[in-house]
């Protein structure tokens, strides 16, 4: 059963690469959060109630509900709808991103297979690495801060999945670290972002370069 969720997770990364609407991105983030909860529930053998509660809060509540709602709120307030502009359509960005996702996925599986380690679940690991790499690629090729935040959360999801790949239990430390990361990134960036758009009326990170010393 977990493989179905993993697969859906991989497909959601594919979906990321062709989406244009900010709403769809945010919905996908929420979807990934729910998926992660289900994967963790099935994948982890040794779960205490405390752990379940913590993971539920982290994935379902934060990743699944709070962050998407918060981001949607920001998007609405700043009137951001489309992330890709017309120029990107002409460049067929989505097309290459799909190709990139598939090839990254296949390569990670091949590399994961080379590890030949019984303790590591390859399907978890390769999907996780795909998520991390694709998140990085999304950040590299996009200018808007909004998508930087979203991609960052995709990377966080990948890291979460990677932690699941390694062992039967989720180390408490990793959990807290991820949660802290989320706080710092999303909340601070959100506030920062709210203030910025107030000044620049544009969410392109180009404007930020004018702030440098």
């Amino acid at each position, binding site marked *: 059963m977990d493989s179905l969720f993993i697969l859906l997770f991989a497909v959601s990364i594919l979906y990321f690469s062709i989406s244009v609407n900010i709403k769809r991105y945010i919905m996908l983030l929420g979807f990934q959060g729910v998926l992660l909860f289900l994967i963790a529930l099935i994948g982890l053998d040794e779960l205490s109630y405390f752990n379940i509660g913590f993971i539920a809060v982290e994935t379902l509540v934060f990743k699944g509900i709070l962050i998407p709602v918060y981001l949607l709120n920001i998007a609405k307030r700043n009137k951001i709808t489309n992330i890709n502009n017309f120029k990107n359509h002409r460049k*067929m960005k989505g*097309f290459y991103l799909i190709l990139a996702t598939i090839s990254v996925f*296949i390569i990670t599986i*091949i590399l994961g*297979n080379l590890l030949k380690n019984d303790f590591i679940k390859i399907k978890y690991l390769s999907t996780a690495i795909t998520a991390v790499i694709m998140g990085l690629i999304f950040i590299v090729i996009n200018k808007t801060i909004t998508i930087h935040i979203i991609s960052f959360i995709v990377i966080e999801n990948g890291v979460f999945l990677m932690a699941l790949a390694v062992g039967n239990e989720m180390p408490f430390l990793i959990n807290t670290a991820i949660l802290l990361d989320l706080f710092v990134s999303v909340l601070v960036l959100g506030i920062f972002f709210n203030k910025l758009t107030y000044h620049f009326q544009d969410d392109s990170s180009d404007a930020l370069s004018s702030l440098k010393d």
Partner: protein
Amino acid sequence: MATIIAALFLLIWFTFLFSSKLAYWFVFLLELTLWFTTSYFAVKVLSSGLEYQEIFIDKFYFQPLILKIDKLSALFILVINFTCLTSYIYARKYLEPYQKIKQKFSFLLHYFNFFMLNLSLLLVVMIQQALGFLLVWEIMSLSAFMLVIFESEKPEVIKSGIKYLVQMHIAYFFIIAGFVYVFAATGDFSFEGIKAMTFNSAFVLGIPNSFWFFLLFFIGFGIKAGFFPLHAWLPIAHPAAPSHISGLMSGVMIKMGIYGLIRVLFNFPDLNLSIGLFLFGISIFTGIFGVMSAIVQHDLKKLLAYHSIENIGIIGIGMGVGVLGQVYHQPLVSALGWAGALLHIVNHSLFKSLLFYSAGSVYIKTHTRDINSLGGLIKKMPFTAFSFLIGAVAISGIPPFNGFISEFLIYNGLFQSFKAVSLELPLLMLFGVLGLALIGGLALFCFTKAFGMVFLGTARTPNAEHAIEIEPSMRFAKALPIFWIVSIGLLPIYFYQLVTSVIQDKFPDIAFQNLPIANALHSIGILGLILITSFGVFFVIRNLILKGKQIKFGQTWGCGYQYADAITNQYTATSFAANFARISKPLFHDKSDNISYGENEIFPIPRAFKTHTEDKIENTVIMPIANTLIVWVKKLAVLQTGKIQDYIMYPLIFIILIVLLTITNII
């Protein structure tokens, strides 16, 4: 056989005594003798299963020169002879228009070289001793060069010819290096010597030693075959050559590279993963690259040349499956891969020569190869259109013709691997399935474009409008490959037996006759027959039904605007490829030259608009390397002072250096 070949070799020199017309028939006679003798032995070897061996020259320098026909050579001999036959028949009328503008001697030379090419091709597959092999290999390259530059009054033809010659000699160097390596290691200067090679387990750059040895041969034979990135000569030399020579080169000569690789791989003692992966990967890339380049190409013969690269890729995929199957100990996978590759060699020689002859017919009657200035030729040249259509369907790998059969075998090898319980092999084969599926789809895209734009619609230029059908002898030359294309498509089982008998020795445990695939091929043949007959019946019924009804003829629907110019309003090859060009932008750049309006240009002057496609890989990867090389070579040219005493000085320095180094025990 040796005496006949020697006699023919002497007789061919008399060609230069005849008039050009007589010379054609004289060479034809010699060719016939050659074809019959060699084919007779080839058929005998294939039917009896025994190798044929004959000593040609007792001692040729330090080796005996032995003519040896095993089953692999026999298969190649038949392919060579058949393609040479059609090519030679086609040549007579194809060269006729040149009679007015060219001297007699160039015709004599052409026929002479044609014979030499045929002879050397045959000897290449018969001789396994390296010295003789290298000799006939060189004769093959040189005679092909002479054939390519038939239209030598055109500067671009000479230029293409020289490029071809240079690349062939780079290849030659690598092949020599490979053989010398074998000689140094085993003392046997032949293909057989590879069997005795032993590789230590040393790794160079993390890759086993044997791979680097294979790479020598791969580069040497790969340039001949046209694997990516060694393909550069193919799209240059093919359009420059006369069409029957393009057909011959593409159908047979580039297969000599494949032949060499097969010989090396069959004799290879230590096939390992790196070799298989390399061959498989580069073949997939070659296939996809070739067909993608073909789509954005609008020169008909260049398009076909790129398709040769694609088909080399498909053959390479088959060989890669063969090697990988062996590496992972899946004999069935391996056998199907090899069988598919061998059958595809036969198939490609058939439909590619047919396509080149058709393209040549179009060229000789319209004097243009640009797809964008042709059109509507099906009404003027129905037979040419029909033959091109057969070739197009066959090369796209679509049933009921032969292209499908060989792809079917390779596909089956790939799918066979999914039954194995392992992870790596299916993962690798996945790429093969995706690659082949993509190549098939792209080939369909490309050949609907080529056929549709050249033969259908309205003629785009007066040249195309006044074209006439070609002469009967050329039609006959094209009918021969069509016959085999259809018969391989409808009776695949016999050709399956043919190619599997070649590899039977390699896979003694497999009973090829009892494999389910033999059954499948039988069904495919019957289904193809049913498809063709039911099509005939149904089409007749349709025509009978239509007969009783009112049939009207009118203009093509023009969106309510009936005065549109039928010529300019149709789709062009460039626009057909446009949406593909957009998604393949990282590889190819569609460049359009247009002049923007000047500031004070109130009444615009007439303008022309032109588009052409650039190969980005060539521009960004190959050209910078070549340019750097040129810069360095130019720096070396300092030595070229032009003074005779300097030139004498260099060998003197060299001799002194050698002596000094020997004395000091450095070398």
